[in-house]
């Protein structure tokens, strides 16, 4: 899973960090660091909760990326990209 970070929307509520401090990294003022986040499978539940608790809607859960990744891995496992 990937989380798209709209850090211009972040207002430092830190609700994401409260749910998943290992996933969401804050700067010295308590605002989220710029850059999208690749979430390891074991952290998906907490990361999803964190993203969904942002009052500013600054965190977007990118599921399309999951599907893309699945297709890629499947294809790779099946011997490459024979279209």
């Amino acid at each position: 899973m990937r989380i798209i970070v709209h850090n211009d929307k972040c207002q430092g509520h830190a609700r994401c960090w409260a749910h998943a401090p290992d996933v969401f990294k804050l700067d010295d003022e308590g605002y989220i660091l710029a850059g999208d986040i690749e979430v390891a499978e074991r952290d998906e539940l907490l990361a999803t909760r964190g993203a969904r608790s942002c009052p500013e809607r600054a965190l977007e859960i990118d599921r399309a990326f999951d599907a893309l990744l699945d297709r890629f891995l499947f294809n790779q496992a099946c011997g490459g990209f024979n279209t």
Partner: protein
Amino acid sequence: MVRDFSLFTSPGMGPTPDGDPHAAVACAHDAPSIFYSPNNTRDGRGTWVITRAKDQRRVLHDTATFSSHRSIFASALGENWPMIPLELDPPAHGVFRSLLNPLLEPKRVMVLEPAIRERAIVLIDGISAASTNCDVMKDFAFPFAVSIFLHFLGLPDERLDTFVGWGKDLLHGEGVKRTAAARTIVAFIDDLAAVRRKEPTDDFMTFVVEAKVDGRPLTDEEVRGIGVLVFVAGLDTVATAIGFDLAYLARNPKDQQLLRREPDRIGLAAEELLRAYSTVQMIRVAKKDIEFEGAPIRKGDYISCATMIANRDPAEFENPNTIDLAREDNRHTAFAYGPHRCLGSHLARREIVIGLEEWLSRIPDFRIKEDTAPITYGGHVFGIENLILDWS
């Protein structure tokens, strides 16, 4: 588009025994999503009332159209200076916000936790050793919150009662009392700043008088604006939240037992109680004429974004009038939205959670004492008093 509605004078907003002011304002959702209320400030001015969370977000994000500059505290003294950063608009706002953010960011607040917990334990142990009932606001909520705030400012506890008195007069006193309290607080902040300029220590006020913005030291007016805001914002907001939370738990023994049995749930529960029992409203001033969701807002109009109304918005929260301590995805606005998000929110949250944790682990099943009724009120900051809890 005009409705007879006021956070100060509508039914349930005055002092009410066993009142529920939050339920009383939830009826605003039966009206249009934006309406004009001709009498919705303490001094009887009209405001637009924004009821929907999504519209409040739009107002609070659009600082170019909706200004925070109101000098609400100073104007009570016939003066004009902003509380900082609350009453500044970007870009000036961002400069001061960046200065103060590091003092109250979440990881910094973790450093204060042992002191917060110790304060809660000392107060609650004292209460439980003395009796099997107490007046929660007087005996616990106010002394706890104000003591943490004094600790943050680097001031000793011995003047605690004086500060609580000033805060009460300021927020809930009548005209003359309120003005006198405002003058007292300004004089106190000015004096403290002067003392710290002469004899720096390592406290908050020293930080403020020695800080620089844009490469220059702060003016006396800026120091005052910051000091007064911290004083006003830290005084009774947290205490009131704890009061409403304990009143809810006293009346809902099942939820009380659940949190006592599974204290890990207190963090999430505190968010739901923040949603259900928010206490403040944000006011903005229109900088220009604007058509907003069909409302003809004119330059100079006041716009009220009341947290307790947005937090009962059925479009935002499923069953908004039901308190569900396990509610997830709870994007409430108790600490506002946008750049003015409450600077003290991280400290406030920890105070509330730690206060509830220690209370529930030290005080057995409690209820509201028979033949007593807590008194609630609406207004500028919602409140509760005479909350007598009993565990005999």
